[in-house]
């Protein structure tokens, strides 16, 4: 197991949420959208201009910016 920011994920990589490192409205927004500890998230792809990114969780697709993905610490199986 390895800790890694969601923003550093490679295309197609999957991991589970460890914790959110941001406070305030954005934290709440992310929690409400289902990004809670233990949730499985797959990084699908980035937008044509390199940001935002498309992730898949809880059976739906969510777009978030890389700056927001930097607030999401993940656990992955993979060794980089």
């Amino acid at each position, binding site marked *: 197991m390895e800790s890694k920011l969601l923003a550093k994920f490679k295309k197609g990589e999957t991991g589970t949420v460890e*914790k*959110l490192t941001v406070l305030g*409205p*954005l*934290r*709440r*927004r*992310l*929690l*409400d*959208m*289902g990004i*809670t*500890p*233990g*949730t499985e998230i797959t990084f*699908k*792809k*980035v*937008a*044509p*201009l*390199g*940001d*935002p990114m*498309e992730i*898949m969780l*809880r*059976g*739906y*697709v*969510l*777009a*978030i*910016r890389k700056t*927001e993905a*930097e607030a999401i610490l993940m656990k992955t199986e993979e060794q980089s």
Partner: protein
Amino acid sequence: MRFAIAGNPNSGKTTLFNSLTGSRAHVGNWPGVTVDKKEGVYRLGNGAKTSEKINIIDLPGVYSLSPYTPEEVISRQFIMDEKPDLIINIVDSTKLERNLYLTTQLLEMDVPVVVALNMMDIIKREGSVIDTEILSQKLGVPVVPVSALKSGNVKLLMDKCIEYVKSPRRGSSFLPETALSEQYAKVLKLVERHNIRHPVFHAVKLLENDSIELMHNAVLSADIQNLKLEYEKSEKPFDYEAEIADLRYKFITDDIKPNAVKVFKNSGSKKSEKIDRILTHRIWGLPLFGLLMFVIFHFIFSENFLYLKSFDILEKGLSSPGVLLQEYIEKGLDFIMNRMHLLLGNAHAAAWAQGAVVDGLLKGIFSVLTFLPQILLLFLSLSILEDSGYMARIAFIMDRLLKPFGLSGKAFIPMLMGFGCSVPAMMGTRTLGSVKEQRMTIMLVPFFSCGAKMMIWATVGTAAFAKHVDIFIFSVYIIGIAVAVVGAIILKKTAFRGIKSNFVLELPDYRYPRLKGTLVELWKKMKGFLTTVTTTIAVSTLAIWFLQNFNLRFQMVSETGGASILEVLSNAVNWVFVPLGFAQGADGWKLVVATLTGLLAKEAVVSTMGVLYKVPGYDPNVSGSEAQVADTLQADGVFTGLTAISFVVFNLLVIPCVAAVATARSELKSAKWMFFVIGFWFATAWTASFLVYQAGSLLSRAGWINAVIFLFIVGIVLFAIFMRRKNKKDKCKGCNKCGK
């Protein structure tokens, strides 16, 4: 009785609302905030007590009842303060987990809830199985499957609601079954002692450290903070907010889903993924988006449809459906106007009365009405984009471009609509994340040159630059975009200091747009548009007509001569425009008047010039008469190249029209802000025009060509510096090598 509909965005809320209320809905605004309140009436069918009607309130689409976004605050405030008799919670069964997250929060309130399980047709088609009986048991409220919102389903749903509304319901929470049960029980006891309505909801929110709760229940929250301290085990405070969100999701995934969902296949998402492989492709995504936009605008605004003329397929070419419809409407309205003329003439009405009715009121209203088909087609295209799910992808694709300005990708859509008409564009800002973002977008929208302004560019361009009119028109569009970019940077540094957008947006599954719902929405939009036309625009056209046709002694100019009030007024404000070049000289006031009438509606600029420069045989009702205006302007030498540009720049950037101002007023929800925005438009127009004229007069001594080359080089250098600084900033992120 009053029922409220609550649910996630994209869960089919609007469709349900429309099929419950038909077009009998009216849209009002919530006091003080930028969220719509939609209300409609559902009539009980045959067999029931027919006199009874139920008011249906459509709450804004939300994912949660957290205290941060205006929509969420509105929804919870409505349920608690306005006390609806029942909540219909619409749930997208293909996205059950996230949808039920809201359901569990609604269940905490003391109000009967009926869950409408939507998209069950898709669930069946995919071979998934959801046991509604078990779901209903787990949630403790009735669950009604509704598929594609067929009328039979709606009837079943409403029957269930009417049956269930009679039994009062206490709020319920999942917390007693969790690790937080002790804390929850103690907080609930405290809350109940204070005799507050919705004790369960308040108890949970207090436990979550919800900011609104802490503010409203200061005494109580102090007790609760003490209570929480007893449970703190480590130095670090326990994060109740995250923990409760987590437990809520766990309750859904561990307790509800394994029991109620028998089989789950999600092929809808897979299909969408395939479509997105093309539509949001790294390379093809942007060009395809550009192409789609081009097709839409071509369909609505082009006078050379499918380029039949250019390719010599049809000699005369064909107008696009939008322009064609506009031409028909123009013909119809002209007919009505001529009839009115005859009617009033036969009735021997006074000249001023004829003028006021026909040339003032009717001409004013009709000039705006002719845009109705194009505005409706624009709306139709946009609502198809929205309904199909592509709109979210546009925001996704364009977000990166708008991020540096503190805006999100969602702001791109109103700006794009601005090329059509500022009015719907400003209405489209409602969906933006924050009030700041909405205000800033409204301020920028008019810089995207609208359809009505096109006429001015063509006329002035022909008069001043003759053959190069197409380059001229294209440049005006580019100038507008450039000013929007500069304006956004300045606004971000001043009035909107610290504006920062987030971008957390669901990309819903693609689906076929529903025709019936779209048409109902279109009908509502049309009603809204017609209301504006018959109120604001009618009054202001009458006012301008009066100012234009009467002198200071309130006699008609055409009968007694003398300067009209408008002329006197424009002479009084002439000095404002003198530094801009175009107001200089004996006839300068005419262009000032044209500009001033343009504040009413941009269509008026060319027709005013036509009247004031006494264009021979000028008739604004005959298409192609702009060409006559241009000829006269050219023959009279009204414009030099420089004054033409200055005049055009001012008209491009200044207050767009009365309709846009009225829309801005209603969207900004504040008269103070409206005046600020008007001031901003005027200041931007004046400054830009001033710079163009003064810099141009200086440079023109060096010759036009040199000036253009000089400006071009300056532009490139500035752009290069900007990009370099940006790239440096982007590169320095998280490498940790330089220690910054």
